[in-house]
């Protein structure tokens, strides 16, 4: 019989081995799987677009826009594409399927029949999903940022190495990572709680979309609100929407980052509790 069994008390390092075991299995299943092709396309699209921009602009004899315009264009792309669409839907595809996908494939019982606590299972699956999301989105953000002003050659290098470029790049990468952490926790929970997480995702998406127009109290119940405050370049709101936007004091960095991590932790704890009470009922899926 199994020599590692110590009733009531996990052996030292056992939880770590279990966590690694779950992550290994999940990474094998989700990373670079054929089913996730659309997520890789979402991550590659802005890189392709900025690459095209570089190729087109570098053939012009003289640039037709400034570096500042490129910086604002990237800020708009980051807010409107990365945060509101790419990372949002990408995380939905990765994290909502961690449990729901296994229910649909009728394979979740294999996990439930292993001697690991459901809390460890939730943590292992989340960390595996997070590793995939970070591996896709953080490099995508970095590559798109580095390519968008590449046509300005020396001026762009100067902007990166001697100007605010590097710190902006760091901020965007941090915000992308935080977005993966936050949305990952939201969609993992949706995948455990709802038979159709798409409906829940649509509700979250609409909520995040109308965030700028909400009163300041409601604004704060949002992942996007904290992420937007951490972005290094503010995107001007065009008329007539600018009159509808309500202004709220930006949340300082030292509150926004721990706040978002705490929110993710709360959602993960709730997911773990839900997973603990979860049952296998493939017939109802």
């Amino acid at each position, binding site marked *: 019989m199994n020599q590692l069994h110590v009733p009531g008390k996990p052996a030292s390092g056992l939880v770590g081995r279990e966590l690694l*075991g779950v992550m290994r299995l999940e990474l094998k299943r989700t990373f670079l799987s054929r089913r996730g092709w659309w997520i890789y396309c979402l991550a590659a699209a802005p890189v392709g677009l900025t690459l095209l921009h570089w190729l087109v602009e570098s053939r012009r004899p003289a640039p037709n826009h400034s570096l500042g315009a490129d910086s604002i264009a990237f800020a708009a792309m980051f807010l409107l594409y990365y945060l509101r669409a790419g990372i949002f839907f990408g995380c939905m595809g990765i994290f909502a399927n961690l449990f729901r996908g296994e229910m649909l494939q009728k394979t979740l019982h294999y996990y*439930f029949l292993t*001697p690991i606590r459901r809390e460890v299972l939730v943590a292992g699956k989340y960390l595996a999903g997070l590793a995939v999301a970070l591996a896709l989105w953080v490099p995508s953000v970095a590559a798109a940022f580095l390519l968008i002003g590449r046509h300005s050659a020396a001026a762009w290098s100067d902007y990166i190495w001697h100007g605010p470029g590097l710190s902006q790049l760091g901020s965007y990468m941090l915000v992308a990572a935080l977005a993966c952490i936050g949305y990952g926790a939201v969609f993992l929970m949706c995948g455990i709680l709802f038979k159709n997480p798409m409906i829940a995702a649509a509700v979250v998406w609409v909520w995040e979309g109308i965030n700028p127009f909400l009163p300041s109290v409601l604004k704060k119940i949002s992942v996007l609100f904290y992420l937007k405050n951490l972005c290094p370049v503010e995107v001007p709101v065009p008329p007539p929407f600018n009159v509808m936007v309500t202004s709220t004091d930006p949340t300082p960095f030292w509150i926004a980052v721990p706040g978002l991590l705490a929110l993710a932790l709360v959602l993960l704890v709730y997911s773990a509790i839900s997973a603990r009470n979860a049952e296998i009922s493939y017939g109802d899926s």
Partner: protein
Amino acid sequence: MSEADITFTGVSRFYGEVLGINKVTLSIPPGITSLVGPNGSGKTTLMNLMCGLIRPTQGEISVLGTPPDRPQELCRILGYCAQFDAFPPGITGYQFIHSFLRLHGMTDAECDRRTLAALELTGLSAAADRPVAAYSKGMRQRIKLAQAIAHEPRVVVLDEPLNGLDPLARAEAIALFRQWGVEGRHVIVSSHILHEVDKISDQVILLSHGYVVAEGQIQGVRSEVKEQPMQIQVRCDRPHLLAARLFQEDHVVEAKLAGNGLLLRTADADRFYLLLNRIILECGLDVESVAPADDDVNSVYQYLIGAEGGTA
């Protein structure tokens, strides 16, 4: 609560308003126990409850003293081969067993040893590196079995384990179950193939509409079914004489001559055996064999569950 048995105490499980099982109180000792009943009778519900995949609406379950809501303890002593014919995509037979063994916290070398042993036991060593998706139905059934037993559990729960197996694999699987039963493990098997259940079971649990209709050793269960006259086959040199004498008794309901034997139905088996002894002494009857003809699972199933069974 016995730590040597699997116990159900007043367990009910409802799916919304639909009954899964109701007020089940059972104690399953070591050996091979078969769950028998028509589709929807509650066999899989009982197994899923035992394995912690679902929770009871009411009542308590204990698997060798461990409640099923503690997978970290239960799944070290229990292996479940479920009915679902689904596997993680793109995985080979070896990887399937090995990667889930890793979740038991074993070292790579230990997982490797146990994986190879389980593959060997189920005759899948040659197909270990092929994707499970390319396996035949019988091989998929065997790889599930291998995965369920790879960690050497004390309780093995098998939902329709003989489905899809060819006769040879079926015989091998049955021999394996028997070996586990002899070793003192709890082997719980559900099956529709009643003659095979009959061959392998130490005890049976008959289920119908979510209720336990009967449980125990099959001969004991049969003797409890008083309303159905017992069938007894007697082989002797003068069956006509025996038939004539038996028809004088009111407890003998029917007697049929068949070759050098007599198949009779009696409402009181004990009185019949006493009578038979008397006839042998009085008439010098040469009796070759006397054996009950309907104390098998199939007959008991027909008597207790009858036409509603349908799937037997």
